[in-house]
């Protein structure tokens, strides 16, 4: 446990919470704990958890076993995207045949929705087949799955935990910065030569990271960093900065980077994203269920150059923040606020009824179905 604290490992699911602290919170609870490895990856643009489970399922399972030992849990439930279910099942068969685990493993196929990856939604899904967040308190560390103390960790976090258990904190800290040690799996999409998942050292210059992904295919205007709950950053300043929370001044979230070409419309892309995220609300909390569709309506008006109530839009964005059982509305507010800043010129054009984009093709992936 000391080694994990010294490693400085933080969660790779989006919130970047210190892993040692999370483990300790579960350890201190009375009752038999349970570990959930979260590979839900409800974010439609992110592929890193799937890439990890497809290539190194045993590393994740090792990490889940380590976590289970640390919090004295006998059971670990592995929640994975349907694409990698077969790989994880096969890995578990291999382990059972080799009889290497004290931990009892169970695999559950994840629900395919944006909010389904939130920790309490994962517990709700495993317990009741309801992939939506639950009210807090109680915290999951106190009363989660079956009212047991529950540790929910992203699968990439668990893979790092396995490596730290094996090689130590000093080894882990040979990569990354002193404040943000280690490497990170990033999904890089958009105007990029070879879109996909890469492992990068935290602190690598953003331009270098894009080079590793085949380089830019043309000039870009902005980067969406973190996830669909992340933030837009202007291209010119971000490219020279280190890829770290400190360097970019924002959380790295689930490690998503999307390069938006200058030919695209940031306002239209943001409006489409806002609609997708509004449709993905679990619909349980009023401010999110009513606020997000209203915000998406206004953004669509703006995107199409129709009259828009900008003052009301901005008020709604600030009012929904912090008013959900989960942080879905907070993430949407953060993403849209950053878009209104970064695409300020294009917003002004749209208020006048114009769009300066020369290419209306979609850049940000949103799944089809009811939410397209």
């Amino acid at each position: 446990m000391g080694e994990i604290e010294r490693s400085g490992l933080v969660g790779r699911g989006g919130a970047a919470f210190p892993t040692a602290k999370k483990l300790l919170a579960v350890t201190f609870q009375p009752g038999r704990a349970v570990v959930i490895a979260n590979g839900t990856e409800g974010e439609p643009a992110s592929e890193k958890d799937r890439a990890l489970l497809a290539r190194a399922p045993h590393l994740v399972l090792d990490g889940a076993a380590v976590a289970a030992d640390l919090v004295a849990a006998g059971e670990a439930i592995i929640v994975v995207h349907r694409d990698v279910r077969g790989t994880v099942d096969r890995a578990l068969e291999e382990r059972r045949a080799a009889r290497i685990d004290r931990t009892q493993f169970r695999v559950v196929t994840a629900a395919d929705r944006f909010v389904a990856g939130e920790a309490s939604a994962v517990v709700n899904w495993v317990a009741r087949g309801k992939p939506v967040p639950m009210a807090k308190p109680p915290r999951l560390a106190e009363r989660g799955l079956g009212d047991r103390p529950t540790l929910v960790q992203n699968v990439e976090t668990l893979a790092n935990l396995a490596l730290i258990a094996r090689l130590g904190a000093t080894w882990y800290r040979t990569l990354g910065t002193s404040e943000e040690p280690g490497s990170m799996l990033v999904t890089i999409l958009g105007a990029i030569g070879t879109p996909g998942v890469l492992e990068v050292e935290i602190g690598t210059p953003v331009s270098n990271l894009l080079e590793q992904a085949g380089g830019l295919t043309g000039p870009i205007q902005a980067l969406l960093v973190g996830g669909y709950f992340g933030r837009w950053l202007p291209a010119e300043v971000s490219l020279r900065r280190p890829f770290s929370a400190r360097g970019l001044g924002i959380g790295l979230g689930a490690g998503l980077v999307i390069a938006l070409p200058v030919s695209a419309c940031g306002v239209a892309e943001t409006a489409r994203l806002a609609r997708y995220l509004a449709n993905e609300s679990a619909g349980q909390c009023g401010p999110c269920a009513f606020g997000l569709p209203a915000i998406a309506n206004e953004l669509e008006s703006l995107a199409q150059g129709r009259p828009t109530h900008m003052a009301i839009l901005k008020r709604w964005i600030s009012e929904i923040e912090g008013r959900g059982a989960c942080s879905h509305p907070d993430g949407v507010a953060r993403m849209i606020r950053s878009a209104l800043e970064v695409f300020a010129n294009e917003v002004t054009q749209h208020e006048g009824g114009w769009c300066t984009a020369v290419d209306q093709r979609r850049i940000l992936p949103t799944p089809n179905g009811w939410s397209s």
Partner: protein
Amino acid sequence: MHRSGPASHLANPQRLVLVNPVRIRVDRIACDGRGLCAEVLPELIRLDDWGFPIIDQGVIPGHLEAHAEDAVELCPKMALWLAEADRHGPNR
């Protein structure tokens, strides 16, 4: 969960001493926007455009504590409670 009223003060006498300032918290899933809380405690609670409460997150001033307890008790969905102000949580 819904701590309020004199009974719980007596059950937990430390509460009588104002060393633990409290703030209002809401279960956003349970809340369905009836709006009684904003009528009872307009000083700290207003409603958004859809009728859901926007709650002042500061410590409840002494002269409003009784009203805050009324708001908690009158909520038809039992969605409000008072919590120690130094405890952070995702709900506001």
